[in-house]
């Protein structure tokens, strides 16, 4: 190859590498779909989603099978969560969905527990059974109230000298 040929080859290689990097960013990391809606769209309603966000993963037994596509409020003031699952997934109609947290303060995601029915969920159908998110602040609040109650009963029956002691 002469000098111009080598140059052109390098330019071509550069353009290919750049376009490849753009494609990788868009499709693999950015999650852009090029086949349109090919998944299995289903939805579920929850009393409390507590910080679940769109794009959160949906998994079964720890294996990712889809993601949350949208969150909205339905007519009865419950949170409706739309998700897009793997097209090949056969999910029994009596499956249940729970919002769980990865780690103590980690991100929220949806965990599906498949049911036992023979019929499978069709696109657009609802997952009937749900378990709402645990709100950590509420749990801590309840715990503190309970803990705060018990020494009071103790102090009424006892000497009353521990009134000023803080709750553990």
């Amino acid at each position, binding site marked *: 190859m002469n000098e111009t040929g080598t*140059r*052109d080859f*390098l*330019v071509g*290689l*550069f*353009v290919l*590498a*750049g*376009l490849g*990097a*753009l494609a*990788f*960013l*868009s499709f*693999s*990391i*950015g*999650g*852009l779909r090029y086949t349109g809606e090919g998944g299995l769209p289903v939805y579920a309603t929850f009393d409390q989603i507590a910080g679940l966000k769109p*794009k*959160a*993963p949906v998994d079964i037994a720890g294996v*990712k099978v889809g*993601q949350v596509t949208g969150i909205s409020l339905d007519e009865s003031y419950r949170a409706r969560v739309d998700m897009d699952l793997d097209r090949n997934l056969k999910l029994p109609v009596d499956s249940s969905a729970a919002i769980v947290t*990865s*780690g*103590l*303060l*980690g*991100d929220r995601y949806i965990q599906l527990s498949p049911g036992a029915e023979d019929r499978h969920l069709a696109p657009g159908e609802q997952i009937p059974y749900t378990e709402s998110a645990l709100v950590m602040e509420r749990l801590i609040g309840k715990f503190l109230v309970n803990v705060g109650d018990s020494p009071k009963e103790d102090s009424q029956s006892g000497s009353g000298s521990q009134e000023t002691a803080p709750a553990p």
Partner: protein
Amino acid sequence: MGAGAIRGLGHGVGDVVESLGRLAVFTARILMVTVRPPLRLREFADELFKLGVLSILIISVSGLAVGMVLGLQGYNTLVRFGAEGSLGAVVGLSLIRELGPVLTALLTTGRAGSAVTAEIGTMKATEQLDGLRMMAVDPIDYVVRPKAWAMICVMPLLSALFILTAIGGGYVVGVGLMGIDGGTYMSSLENSVDFGNDVAGSILKAVIFGVLVGLIATYRGYTSAPTSAGVSAATTSTVVIASVSVLIFDYFITALWGV
């Protein structure tokens, strides 16, 4: 005294408006010759080589270094909250939304924009542009157009390469040195980055920065004083003006489109 200061202000504003107008005319002239045959693809390819291929080394080395620093800083902060699993999201989002396009534009300004200005300025100082005009060749068509368009095309590609090497650098530090799980890093990255919100905005920024740097560099060279001091001053002002306008435009793009 007071009148003099006001006169100075008026003169300054007049100068700014005048140079913006000249830049607009210059831009319009480039656009008018953009699709005029011959398309001069040979010159365009040569510019892609000079501005793009020769910038790959500095872009990838800087990307790797920036990614490794981000990985280290991010890890040290996140580990206090036990959230080191989110390192991929921290590194990826800050790179894709901000650092990738901006740092690429700054590096490319220094590496390639200054060279464009110096080359055109020297051609002007040595009367090569006049020589082209003598042969009825429009210097905007033959010299400026390939350089400006090459800069616009090269910027998003270099930015994507920068982002990928930096994500790789973050991976090396986070997974290799700090012992985060590789799958955690990648899945936190993939879950938090969205094409519409993040990647498209990143590409938009890179293209706009390419337009800015390409126009400023060619314009400064084309209008430089035809002396060695003039070429040197034009090169300096390309780097200063292009860098500052990249940073200012970055703020406004982020504020307007939220990317």
